[in-house]
């Protein structure tokens, strides 16, 4: 099969095809960047949400958890933890989060452990706000179930 393809043909596919793909990719990137604010409700991204994201990074939460399906697979998905543990109610989710973060690490032998991060109640609220905001992203119907 490759006998009929010459070196210069292959070279042209490389440059031509590569350029073509790159141009489409760049064009779609511009369009996606336009659409993301709406799909992610950027208007509701309060200071607390932004602070929560910074705390999420500072404590490397993604080193154990997935969020929107990306990260590590050691611990549960957290995009929909707001629905799972707070039943979609902000006040009860925030209360749950305060209790949860304070209780770590759980004293159950051999269970996978989550560290104690020594966060202030205000910081835990920031994280809750970040997770609530994240749960509302339009991710094309993902995750498929409440368990994530």
């Amino acid at each position, binding site marked *: 099969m*490759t006998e009929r393809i010459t070196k210069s043909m292959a070279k042209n596919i*490389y440059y031509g095809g590569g350029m073509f793909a790159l141009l489409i990719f760049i064009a779609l990137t511009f369009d*996606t960047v336009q659409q*993301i604010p709406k799909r992610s409700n950027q208007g509701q*991204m309060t200071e607390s949400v932004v602070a929560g994201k910074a705390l999420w990074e*500072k404590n*490397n*939460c993604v080193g154990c958890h997935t969020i929107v399906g990306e990260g*590590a697979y050691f611990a549960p998905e957290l995009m929909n933890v707001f629905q799972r543990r707070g039943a979609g109610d902000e006040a009860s989710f925030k209360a749950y989060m305060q209790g949860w973060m304070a209780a770590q690490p759980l004293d159950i032998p051999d269970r996978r452990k989550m560290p104690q991060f020594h966060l202030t109640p205000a910081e835990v609220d920031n994280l809750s706000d970040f997770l609530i905001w994240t749960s509302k992203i339009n991710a094309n119907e*993902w995750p498929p179930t409440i368990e994530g």
Partner: protein
Amino acid sequence: MKYSSQMVAKPYFIFALILLAGEILFGVLMGIQYMYGDFLFPLIPFNVLRMVHTNLLIVLILFGFMGATYYLIPEEAERELWSPKLAILTFWVFAAAGVATILGYLFVPYATLTEVTFNNLLPTMGREFLEQPLPTKVGIVLVVVSYIVNVTMTVLKGRRTVITTVLITGLIGLAVFFLFAFYVPDNLVMDKFFWWFTVHLWVEATWELIMGAILAFVLIKVTGVDREHIDKWLYLIIAMTMVSGILGTGHHFFYMGAPEYWLWIGSIASAVEPLPFFLMVLFAFTMARDSKIKHDNKIALTWAKGTAVMAFLGAGVWGFMHTLAPVNMFTHGTQLTAAHGHLSFYGAYIMIIFTMISYAMPILRGRLHGNCAKAQKLELSSFWMMNIGMLGLTLALTAAGIVQIMDLRMGTELKGFMESQESIQSIFMIRLGFGLLVFVGLITYFASFFVKEEA
């Protein structure tokens, strides 16, 4: 060895192998903590083990690429390296930065590490694979830029070949896409979108060019097939890489807040991504069949063929498994992703480094015809141990992924994440067993370096 400056490759190769031992050791530790949560906790929590594991992986691949480049560029360009001194200097800078970063992960709590490394000035930390402190990231940029300058200057002053052109294109792409590691928008969706510009466009575009160039170089050397023929194959492979891999980035934009059209574009483009890997298999086996010479370094050709096959399995087959949007809906972010991540990284990027080391290291040690038969035999047994180990580990993770998907995402009787994970302890035990086999294989590989040459 034709040019004395090729010698600078040696410390790069040795250091890459040492880091690989560290990577796999931490993999095994994680494998244990996966089942026994109290193991090493709270001394080293899982996220720290994981960071060490994946960051060692990335850094060792960079060391391997650099070693491979410094070895092959003088031979391709038919002149000494532009500045061997610079190459040695950057080796030490990079090695020191790498070691300091790993020690930082292990001995300083991550939150404290962010504070003492100026993360508040330009927040870049705490994202998967890109956890490095700012000074390390800047260091990587400086090292990579000096490396590219060194290589490019050598080529400009010497002979230009398709291999050098492809290699340098890949390296420049690597550097350019790493710059997205410095861009961390507040909006999580935007952040993820550009995060993939580094991660996906490395492993499924620019690194594939580098891999193709290294593979082509080794095949020329050990089969003696003429360059025209090799060049055509190389162009064909990277053409398919570019056509599929760039828009293939869309397979990460299905379910993270990006628009719907990526469901189609990502699925279609990335469905073609196995093709370049398949071509690499044809390439390696056709060149081996058409060999013009009988090279005494047989094991190097074995590695070259093995790389093509394992990369095709890991990236091509395991990648295709979850790359169509309707399937990815259920597999996204499960143990199946981890299965694919392991076999693809190993098959493509660890094995291409083994291939190059296996070819070049004997020459750098003055054994122009390769290692003695006894050493090659030992190396061959390590080849099988590591390959079987990685394949077994991948199959175990695949089984774990399937159970996880059935438990959490299918039917009406759903299990919780932790409950489901606890129910598959035995699968994780099997994974650990195969992981240990990989480790033993690596030790065997190291041992093959110390087999005495027959006089």
